[in-house]
């Protein structure tokens, strides 16, 4: 049977997007060049919108493309670009493969308008108040990223490690074992719930999740109501065989009333493919007056009418609010409410955010915790936060200096971040971004307690903000210079004392610029020395 070309196009494109997007998260050997990340993720709606809100430049134009696509063709994003949506298509397809023909059928269902528009409304409202809290939990791209990072990547890395250890016995070291730092169980809960929910919903009801829970789906659905191209049933050609309805994973084809709910349609084109009589078409929307089949417009009961109005209002509100929320985020410069208070001297007043994240406020207000930077970081210093940013910041990356430290010459997280939470930095300016300041606790230091030399902190310090000064006898003890400290955490990571480190980095609420490390000319000690002083 000939498959409709639009459907083929959709499948090819969607698999392409799904695979390349997944690879970004699963690339545990970090082979994919930094510059590819932006290209691949440029069309992800929420990240692009957030990035635009910061840069206010058209370089983050992806969301505009998605908006235009939606106005023209409907929810193309949902069917071909959104990785969570495509993952559900795959699950739905697989689950249907295992069923009898009759059980494969989808059936028309009523829209869950109150639910989907409420979620959209609350998400937008939160955004208006400068909180990405719900967006972080519900953005489909970010959820997919977390599913990759916390569930699939460990499996891939596990397989790699088994293979690596087998090859190692034969002195082959092309594969090497990779360790993934353990994360708090709480971090698994959100992606875990979303994974179970999407797998279950898609296996049983197709794109139900996208039309009930997903705020992006609801938002783009509102646009699809007025999109240029839309699906329409030609009553004269239709034999009411219901094949289109049975094929519709969005349950949006109502054959009783001969209508298609374009707000729920994810433009998968399966219906076009299913119809043997060309009775369902994807054509340019005609103005209501010129529609030649007025009898096809169902007589809407009062309740339905109200729904329609409500969604119209929600559409307007949504559009305005999304943009207003984005604008608000970019202008907000408040003291963060989620910093931990200073109670114990060793405790950090602020968590450390990645280089280029401007401030805690900016970072937590733009990061959707997609976890891409966590995967991309070559030193494992970026780890999902537990409560460092408060409950709303669960899973947002934090610089964890017990897991690693920020590699001085590395700017990878700044290059890959799709939301603008971490802004791009060149290596040289990055070396001067002050993310925090080293705090030395003399009373915990080995040199003080044991009176033996250590110096691990100064050893690792790339700027010599931590350096050793004479102490007793032959001993040297660390000293810190704030103006050249960048808070990379090398000192904290290397410090051997436990459980509390004798040197740690206190994060900065707002990142600043450090002084350049001193580089006076060395007096040449080689002059006037013999070739072989022995």
């Amino acid at each position, binding site marked *: 049977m000939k498959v409709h070309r639009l459907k083929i196009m959709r499948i090819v494109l969607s698999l392409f997007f799904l695979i390349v997007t997944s690879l970004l998260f699963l690339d545990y050997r970090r082979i994919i060049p930094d510059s590819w990340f932006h290209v691949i993720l440029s069309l992800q709606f929420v990240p692009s919108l957030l990035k635009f809100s910061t840069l206010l430049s058209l370089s983050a134009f992806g969301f505009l493309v998605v908006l235009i696509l939606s106005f023209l063709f409907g929810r193309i994003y949902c069917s071909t670009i959104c990785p969570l949506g495509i993952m559900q298509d795959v699950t739905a397809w697989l689950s249907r493969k295992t069923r009898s023909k009759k059980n494969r059928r989808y059936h028309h269902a009523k829209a869950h308008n109150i639910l989907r528009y409420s979620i959209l409304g609350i998400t937008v409202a939160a955004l208006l108040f400068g909180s990405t809290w719900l967006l972080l939990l519900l953005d489909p791209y970010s959820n997919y990223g977390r599913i990759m990072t916390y569930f699939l990547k460990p499996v891939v890395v596990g397989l790699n490690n088994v293979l690596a250890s087998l090859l190692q016995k034969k*002195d082959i070291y092309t594969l090497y074992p990779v360790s993934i730092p353990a994360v708090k169980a709480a971090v698994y809960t959100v992606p875990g719930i979303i994974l179970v929910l999407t797998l279950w919903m898609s296996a049983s009801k197709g794109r139900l999740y996208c039309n009930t829970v997903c705020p992006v789906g609801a938002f783009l659905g509102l646009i699809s109501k007025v999109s240029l191209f839309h699906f329409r049933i030609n009553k004269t050609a239709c034999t009411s065989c219901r094949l289109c309805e049975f094929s519709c994973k969005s349950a949006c084809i109502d054959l009783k009333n001969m209508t298609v709910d374009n707000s729920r349609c994810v433009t998968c084109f399966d219906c076009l493919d299913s119809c043997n009589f060309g009775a369902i078409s994807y054509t340019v929307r005609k103005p209501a007056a010129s529609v030649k089949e007025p009898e096809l417009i169902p007589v809407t009961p009062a309740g339905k009418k109200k729904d329609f109005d409500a969604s119209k209002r929600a559409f307007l509100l949504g559009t305005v609010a999304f943009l207003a929320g984005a604008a608000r985020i970019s202008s907000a410069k408040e003291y963060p409410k989620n910093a931990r208070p200073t109670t114990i001297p060793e405790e950090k007043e602020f968590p450390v955010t990645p280089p280029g994240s401007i401030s805690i406020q900016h970072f937590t207000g733009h990061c959707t915790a997609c976890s891409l930077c966590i995967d991309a970081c070559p030193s494992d210093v970026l780890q999902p936060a537990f409560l460092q940013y408060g409950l709303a910041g669960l899973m947002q990356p934090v610089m964890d200096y017990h897991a690693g430290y920020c590699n001085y010459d590395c700017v990878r997280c700044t290059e890959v971040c799709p939301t603008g939470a971490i802004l791009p930095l060149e290596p040289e300016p990055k070396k001067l971004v002050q993310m925090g300041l080293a705090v030395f606790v003399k009373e915990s230091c080995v040199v003080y307690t044991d009176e033996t030399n250590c110096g691990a902190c100064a050893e690792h310090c790339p700027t010599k903000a931590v350096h050793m000064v004479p102490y007793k006898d032959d001993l040297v003890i660390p000293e810190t210079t704030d103006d050249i400290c960048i808070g990379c955490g090398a000192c904290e990571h290397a410090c051997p004392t436990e459980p509390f480190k004798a040197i740690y980095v206190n994060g900065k609420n707002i990142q600043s610029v450090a002084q350049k490390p001193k580089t006076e000319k060395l007096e040449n000690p080689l002059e006037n020395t013999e070739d072989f*002083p022995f």
Partner: protein
Amino acid sequence: MKRRDFFLRTAGAGLGLSAVASLGGLHPLMAGPAMAAAADMAAVRGGEPNVMFDRAIAAMGGMGRFVKKGQKVVIKPNIGWDVPPDRAANTNPLLVKRIVEHCFNAGAKEVLVFDNTCDAWTKCYRTSGIEKYVREAGGKVVPGNTEGYYQEVEIRNGKKLKSAKVHELYLAADVIIDVPVLKNHESTKLTIAMKNLMGVVWDRRYWHRNDLNQCIADFAGFHRRPDLVVVDAYNVMMRHGPRGVSKSDVVNMKAQIVSTDMVAADTAAAKMFGTDPASIRYIRLAQEMGVGTMDLSSLNISRIKI
């Protein structure tokens, strides 16, 4: 080495043999056992790292004295930091490459190179140039990044360090060549051959926590010691060690010390640096433990000026 020679070498399957053929019989790589008695230590000045090594190893009796046919050689350079070669925080890659070539010429079956780095290991291996140069010479670059590679061993004579997790290759090697770079170290004053061995163990924090100088000496006293020590003092970091801040920390000393005794190598290198070896506690401790000698006058030293 000429670019043309390199292509000739890699083109042939028998890497070592083709090298000898293409470079000609007078090339230092061909140097057999020296006529005079092999030196205990060779100190060279004034050449490029590879040239100095050719001369030094010839004076030591040729690589054949240390590497026999079919043996597995492990080279341990310092690859601790994600900085380029001119910063002298890592061992000179050209030197490492030349050592690999000499090993193959002596008949080595395999030459493996690794370090348990401080900065992110993939970046260190790449930025240091060592990964590329070792592969060019036909050697294997081995990761040291996961605990799984390390096996617990007892340090019998250790005073503070009673046991350590040591990289399996260090334990399995037929020949170990320790190739440190001489540089300043803010806490232990200098890092040379003995300190470089911190990169073959997993838990360095324990050393720092439990009298670093004693632990360095303790591990130097571990029964499996390097068979050959090559101290790279071509570019030397004079301050801000061991990572350094900029090129202004580095001087072009153009020196190299080759020895079979880590304590002697560290002593000679310290003198070259301009530091009294007796002021470096781990060198003193290692001598007291009988690891080697600080008395350079007792050694047959070949001094070579290029």
